[in-house]
């Protein structure tokens, strides 16, 4: 551990990341108007026809003490399997599983290479600037794992001139405390920001124990969570054409893992420590833009219970270099390479293991006429023994109707995707399966988008997307005919669905209203099974809700703001046979904020209630979730 703390010190001493400062009161109308430009973000320039949704900044700011899991569960159609209030939380995108989701931080993969997935409950919102969700396959752009979709995290942009900062203190039901602070300095060519947070939650709520006779009300035990972390971001414009950014992100999480109702408390505990360091150099020349990212990640996972003591420690070295060349206003080409090197020590492996992966990518964008945008992306990954085939993606975006009031676009794409086996799949002692193949997917989608703008006072954006996806050679661990557990290419899955969303923003004098409604239908079924006895063909995969809906609204009047969030999750089967399920549930969250101006500084008071209707629900069977709770927070912002 000595090295870990040394790196910590180094992080503290010389690196970077930005606070959430200055995000308190973004002008929502303006924000929304900006997102009308579909290709606002660099990665999306080459992702025509795909659906990328940005999480609302007012929401992120209000709920900054929470985890990414809580935020995405509340504000997107994604379903999270959460093992109780303190356990891990993994995502299911468009009917796929957690490993089939890429998670990127400033453009680089951060999912655990041993498990091949990210635990969203240990990814804090604090210190993250932007959260975007890419629905559907995007492996040609993002690489392995972007089958069902991708979650894109970016460090905050710090634009303030001079010194700024904020302090947030929060206390809530069930023994919950949170504190965060940030400090930043910005000048014309330089900005630096440091933020830190600490979080303690007892999770000592009461719930009905369904496993015991008479379902007695009991207090949740063994679910305490302690988390803290640090981010640093530094941006330096060395010259008008050259910029350097350094980002550092450290997260620490020590959790008692909440046992299932009816299951023995084995004192399971998990320690997660992740250090992520990145340097990004950008240079503008007549050959276009050069972007080189260099990163070092260290992920430690230490699990213990009464009879287990298991540690996985992985170091990841990553290099991504890309060159973007734009010709006139119609052609753009980006080519690049991504190199990853993993050094993994895991108690489940026979010895320290190393693996290198490379991928080459080329992204084209062509706008033959102004309203039509075409993109073609190609990626070839090179992984020893597990070479996936060339992965293409073809997309278009056609704004076929454009008047003063209305814009209507048709968009679509066809994209391949892949996922190479994880380090555990490859190196777990005794479980090796030499015949294992990478997963492969095909995603087709078509969408219609309508935007209605009435001056600066009313904006309505509506989007409907239908998709069809096939994922073959889906990897899952299962026992073979002799009872040996090993990873296997278990099944072929067909997922299809519909995604509807509409966002309205209106300004009526001093009252500002914005609301979002969304609905998704997801059918994700086994199309073929390659292993095992019973066929569950045609049946919905476990823990994929067919229906999910959400309604979010924000009202601002003078210094008051009310944020509401209503979320419906339909029935989920708990095995692939459709013979047992968890009931649907509805969650309502409300947050009321009052803003006080203290000279040039701002004080923000927020009272919020989560699960206001006191719904009893589970996202993983028999893992109790918190009932109605209240949180009060104070935030002091120095401009």
């Amino acid at each position, binding site marked *: 551990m000595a090295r870990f703390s040394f790196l910590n010190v180094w992080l503290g001493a010389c690196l970077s990341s930005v606070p959430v400062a200055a995000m308190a009161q973004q002008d929502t109308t303006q924000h929304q108007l900006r997102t009308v430009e579909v290709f606002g973000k660099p990665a999306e320039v080459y992702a025509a026809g795909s659906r990328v949704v940005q999480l609302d900044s007012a929401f992120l700011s209000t709920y900054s003490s929470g985890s990414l899991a809580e935020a995405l569960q509340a504000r997107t159609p994604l379903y999270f399997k959460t093992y109780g209030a303190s356990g891990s939380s993994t995502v299911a995108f468009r009917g796929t599983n957690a490993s089939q989701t890429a998670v990127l931080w400033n453009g680089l993969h951060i999912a655990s290479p041993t498990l091949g997935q990210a635990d969203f409950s240990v990814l804090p919102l604090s210190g993250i600037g932007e959260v975007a969700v890419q629905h559907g396959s995007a492996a040609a752009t993002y690489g392995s794992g972007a089958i069902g979709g991708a979650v894109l995290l970016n460090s905050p942009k710090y634009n303030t001139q001079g010194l700024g900062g904020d302090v947030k203190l929060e206390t809530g039901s069930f023994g919950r405390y949170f504190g965060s602070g940030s400090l930043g300095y910005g000048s014309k060519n330089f900005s630096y920001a440091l933020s830190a947070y600490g979080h303690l939650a007892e999770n000592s709520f009461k719930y009905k124990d369904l496993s015991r006779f008479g379902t007695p009300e009991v207090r949740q035990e063994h679910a305490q969570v302690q988390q803290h972390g640090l981010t640093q971001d530094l941006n330096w414009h060395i010259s008008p054409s050259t910029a350097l950014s350094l980002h550092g992100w450290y997260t620490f999480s020590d959790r008692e893992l909440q046992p299932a109702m009816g299951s023995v408390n084995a004192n399971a505990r998990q320690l997660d420590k992740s250090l992520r360091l990145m340097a990004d150099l950008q240079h503008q020349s007549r050959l276009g833009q050069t972007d080189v990212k260099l990163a070092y990640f260290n992920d430690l996972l230490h699990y213990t219970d009464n009879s287990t003591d298991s540690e996985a420690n992985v170091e990841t070295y990553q290099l991504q270099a890309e060159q973007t060349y734009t010709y006139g206003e119609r052609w753009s080409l980006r080519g690049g390479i991504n190199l990853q090197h993993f050094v993994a020590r895991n*108690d489940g492996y026979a010895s320290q293991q190393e693996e290198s992966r490379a991928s080459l990518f080329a992204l084209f964008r062509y706008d033959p006429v102004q309203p039509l945008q075409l993109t073609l992306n190609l990626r070839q990954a090179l992984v020893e023994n597990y070479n996936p085939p060339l992965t293409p993606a073809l997309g278009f975006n056609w704004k076929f109707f454009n008047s003063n009031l209305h814009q209507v676009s048709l968009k679509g794409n066809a994209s391949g995707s892949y996922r190479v086996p994880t380090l555990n799949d490859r190196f777990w002692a005794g479980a090796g399966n030499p015949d294992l193949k990478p997963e492969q997917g095909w995603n087709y989608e078509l969408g219609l988008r309508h935007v209605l703008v009435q001056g600066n006072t009313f904006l309505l954006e509506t989007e409907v997307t239908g998709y069809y996806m096939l994922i073959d050679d889906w990897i899952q661990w299962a026992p073979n005919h002799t009872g040996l557990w090993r990873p296997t290419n278990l099944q072929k899955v067909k997922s299809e669905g519909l995604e509807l969303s509409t966002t309205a923003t209106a300004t009526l004098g001093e009252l500002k209203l914005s609301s979002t409604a969304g609905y998704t239908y997801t059918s994700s079924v086994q199309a073929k099974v390659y292993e095992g006895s019973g066929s569950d063909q045609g049946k919905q995969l476990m823990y994929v809700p067919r229906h999910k809906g959400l309604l979010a609204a924000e009202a601002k009047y003078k210094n008051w703001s009310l944020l509401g969030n209503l979320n419906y999750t339909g029935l989920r089967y708990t095995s692939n046979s459709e013979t047992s399920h968890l009931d649907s549930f509805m969650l309502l969250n409300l947050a009321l904020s009052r803003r006080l101006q203290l000279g040039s500084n701002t004080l923000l008071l927020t009272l919020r209630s989560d699960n206001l209707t006191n719904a009893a629900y589970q996202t993983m069977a028999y893992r109790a979730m918190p009932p109605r709770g209240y949180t009060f927070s104070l935030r002091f912002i120095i401009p």
Partner: protein
Amino acid sequence: MKKLNFFRSFLLAATLALTSVGFTSCDDNNDGPSGVYAEDGVFVLNEGNFEHTNASISYYNKSTQQVQNNIFSKENADRPLGDVVQDMHIYDNRAFLVVNNSNKIEVVNATTFKSVGVIEGLSAPRYFVALNNEKGYATEWLPPNADWSYNNGRVAVIDLKNNKVIKTIEVEKQPEQLRIINGKLYVTNQGGSTVTVINTATDAIETSIPVTYGSNSLALDKNKVLWVLSSGNKDWNLPESEYTAGALTKINPADNSIIGTITFPEVTASASKLLINGNKDRLYFLYNGGVHQLSIDASALNTTPLINRTFYGLGVDPETGNIYGGDENNWSGDGTVYVYSPEGTQLSSFRASIGPNGFVFN
């Protein structure tokens, strides 16, 4: 770092690395007939996924060939049975359901499956047997050490009038199946080389019979010979060269003497789930990736299996002699039960629930 036991590491792998796994059974969509589970039926013990509280019991009616899943929850206000059901024992009008990772034995009426009590405070209970309506015995494992090594286990003596543990008797490591013969309780010890004999009048250990390492199941034949099946030492921490062979040991319960031993030829192959047919003249067990049959008159093992595949759960119908094999179906969907004739011809199959690991014939 502690060295992980291989089994445990797979468990971890299963828990941590499985991406799409996570299950339960909290309700029941079965439309089969309900009510009486008394006649001509087979109870299927569905272990469920470890730490997911979705163990369940299925009821298969042999004459109508209909299956009712999740009968415990159905008869008990949707309450889940618990986490990992390991054993079920019917005595008189009560059925005892041993739920391993819930540290309890649920007691239900054997015909209605309505709850009549629960025996709590056990430690990883494995198997149960009743002496009479007043007293029963359960084998228990104590929590393993951090290196996954085991200490001695114990047998809990349970007062069946009030469902309380009266006393515990220390036996060898990892006690498994147990059986009462002539007032003596025979306890197999998976983590040792003896069968422990306990006098049920005094609840004290009478003797220990040395057998091949790793005894896990036993059966009494028509000649009153007790057969004990041992897996041999298959400690995953050891290299395969240090494994020892499994065996069948024949014991005369009259004087606890060993009549003979049939040692298995394949040293690395494990053996488990010894059963006997209704006529008590043919033994069945799992060995070396297959279902094996052995006449009680045989002196050596026929190395060709009766059924050339293994199962997670095995049962033999005492009435028909049919063999029931439970397939865990990747643990992500309901398992399948295959029914074979006594000669090993597949007759039928049906779906039960998650991880069928045993059968009880009514």
